[in-house]
């Protein structure tokens, strides 16, 4: 197996003729945690939508595990299902917590998944409210359900789009720990979009700074924070405005 899960080449995305993302070349490695930081409107969420194959790039190609996703080519469903996203706002189905976590497995037609659902709920510490209606949950609980719902699928890649942006420190800590464990124990590749430089520092192996739809700098965490090459990265790391 190759150690690169995604290889992006000349990828761009425009909406109504307005270019929002342009990535000339980017490799995402198996088992790494890549943090994508940058101001809003920098194209971070667009990148995740492309990486989850929810939208096609306007040009270029994304190679995922030796298959190509491009303006002309879609991926087979089986491959598409090896990636999933936890979004900033957890949109849960109006069902019980249990049914929400089981949902993705049901889509895949998997039976006898009770053990997996149970295990995922244990990982996020929510077994006690399994039968509760999802809409009665607090923000932190809802986001943990969303995380369990994604983890139960055992994806090769888990995309996280500002997963802790609206949460209290306790839940932020919990979620970061769950995510780190997932990466260490299962080797799941994680791509984490965040506004929060400190979160990137706490979690990521590698960090990419996006500015105006392009990668300004991408480097290992140590280098990114210790000796940034791009002056804008240096400013960003110091918490200054770079936009």
């Amino acid at each position: 197996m190759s150690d690169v899960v995604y290889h992006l080449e000349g990828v761009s995305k425009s909406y109504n003729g307005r270019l929002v993302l342009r990535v000339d070349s980017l490799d995402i490695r198996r088992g790494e945690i890549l943090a994508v930081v940058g101001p809003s409107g920098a194209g971070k969420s667009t990148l995740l939508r492309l990486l989850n194959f929810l939208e096609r790039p306007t040009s270029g190609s994304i190679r995922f595990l030796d298959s190509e996703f491009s303006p002309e080519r879609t991926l087979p469903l089986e491959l598409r299902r090896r990636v999933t996203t936890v979004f900033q706002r957890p949109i849960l189905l109006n069902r019980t917590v249990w049914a929400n976590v089981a949902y993705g497995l049901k889509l895949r037609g998997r039976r006898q998944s009770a053990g997996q659902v149970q295990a995922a709920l244990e990982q996020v510490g929510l077994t006690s409210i399994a039968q509760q209606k999802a809409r009665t949950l607090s923000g932190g609980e809802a986001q943990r359900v969303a995380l369990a719902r994604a983890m139960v699928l055992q994806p090769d890649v888990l995309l996280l789009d500002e997963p802790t942006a609206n949460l209290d420190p306790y839940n932020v800590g919990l979620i970061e720990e769950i995510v780190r464990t997932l990466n260490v124990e299962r080797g799941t590749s994680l791509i984490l979009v965040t506004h929060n430089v400190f979160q990137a520092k706490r979690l990521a192996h590698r960090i990419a700074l996006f500015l105006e739809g392009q990668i300004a700098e991408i480097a290992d965490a140590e280098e990114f924070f210790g000796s940034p090459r791009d002056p804008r990265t240096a400013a960003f790391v110091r918490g200054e405005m770079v936009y």
Partner: protein
Amino acid sequence: MRGLAEAFRLIGTLDPALLEIVALSLRVSGIALLISALIGIPLGALMGLSRFRGRKLMIALLYTGMGFPPVVVGLFVYLMLSRSGPLGQLNSPLIPQLFTPGAMVVAQTIISFPLVAGFTMAAVMGVDPYLRQQVQALGATRWQTVLAVLAEARIGVIVSVIAGFGSIISEVGAVMLVGGNIEGSTRVLTTAIVLETRKGAFELAMALGIILLSISFLTNVVMLRLQGKTFDA
């Protein structure tokens, strides 16, 4: 009061003529509702979820359809199905003849399906648009996405079916025109009420009215119970 007593007597004795009328009412409206749901729910979902050319026009037509006067629908179906009408002429076994339950089903379907489709569309449009992105991210196919949205909109979808049923079980103009209120063949509750009232048999008319209301009430109770159910597997 006497109407009430008469109603209970008729129900209690299981009056065969009455049973036949009730059965036909339920059969005609039930089949029409089934067809309406089979067409209306997918159509409503499609119109609520996708953007295509002519969608605005279709919505306008649908809303107009939701307010169709049944008697006008009856007239339209009558003209289409009559011996010299464009469909009646074909003499096809697939096309029901005038003054048969089949013709009544056609008319009632036309009345109820815009309601089912319209309310379904509104319900589907009320679902958080990001839900689709979320379920797709979890691996849903197109179909599974549509089903997930319909499941989230289930209360509205059930209301659409209730509205469709209410519009036809209580409708008299169209069934009168295309059915003809023939005893033992096309007489339903509403047309029987009209007839008995005209004859001055107010007790019987009242009795039929009460039965009609009860049927309406009972079906709604059943459907509301469905609404309370969730999809917890």
